[in-house]
């Protein structure tokens, strides 16, 4: 299948549990951060974003936390469901006119029924 030979960091959780996916970013000048979900055979799908003047933002079942001191971003998914199984990417941008996104390596979330 598509994942043969793919060695992404993997997070395995039980259905109904909460998931936390972590990301370290590289550029202290980055001021815009975004999480994407990518299902097999699909493009990255926007989940939630946060700007550097905030340290927490909540959406539906998802929360993003930003710690600028240690350049760390996390995505929390409440009551994880089988449909949440996918690869999750964080990305950072410096907020300039180009809106250039730098993507992290991705984390595979596997939800066990």
């Amino acid at each position, binding site marked *: 299948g598509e994942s043969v030979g793919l060695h992404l960091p993997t997070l395995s959780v039980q259905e109904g549990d909460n998931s936390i996916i972590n990301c370290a970013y590289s550029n202290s000048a980055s001021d*815009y951060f975004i999480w994407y979900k990518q299902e097999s055979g*699909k493009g990255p799908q*926007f989940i939630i974003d946060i700007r550097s003047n905030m340290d927490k933002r909540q959406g539906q079942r998802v929360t993003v936390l930003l710690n600028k001191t240690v350049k760390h971003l996390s995505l929390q998914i409440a009551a994880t469901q089988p449909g949440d199984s996918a*690869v999750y990417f964080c990305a950072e941008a410096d907020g300039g*006119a180009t809106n250039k996104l730098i993507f992290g*390596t991705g984390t595979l979330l596997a939800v066990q029924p």
Partner: protein
Amino acid sequence: DTAVSQTPKYLVTQMGNDKSIKCEQNLGHDTMYWYKQDSKKFLKIMFSYNNKELIINETVPNRFSPKSPDKAHLNLHINSLELGDSAVYFCASSREGGQPQHFGDGTRLSIL
């Protein structure tokens, strides 16, 4: 309605050929992008256009040439295809900086 659509979805061709991938967005966005995703799922920006003007041009071989006939379309032409060009190519669009980019479902390019 598909917001960002790419064609073709699959492209299988021989080394040395020239091919094009097309992208269209109906979101009214001013900025469009091309990304390359390798076999390890690593996503990297290649090009970006804002209102038909090139604003990002990463270190990409000049065999790759983007063309934006209008702000709703951004096509990617690749000359003299090489084995290392095998990847999934994603088109995306966004409003101005600091806004989410919306991605198409990708074109899987396989070079034989």
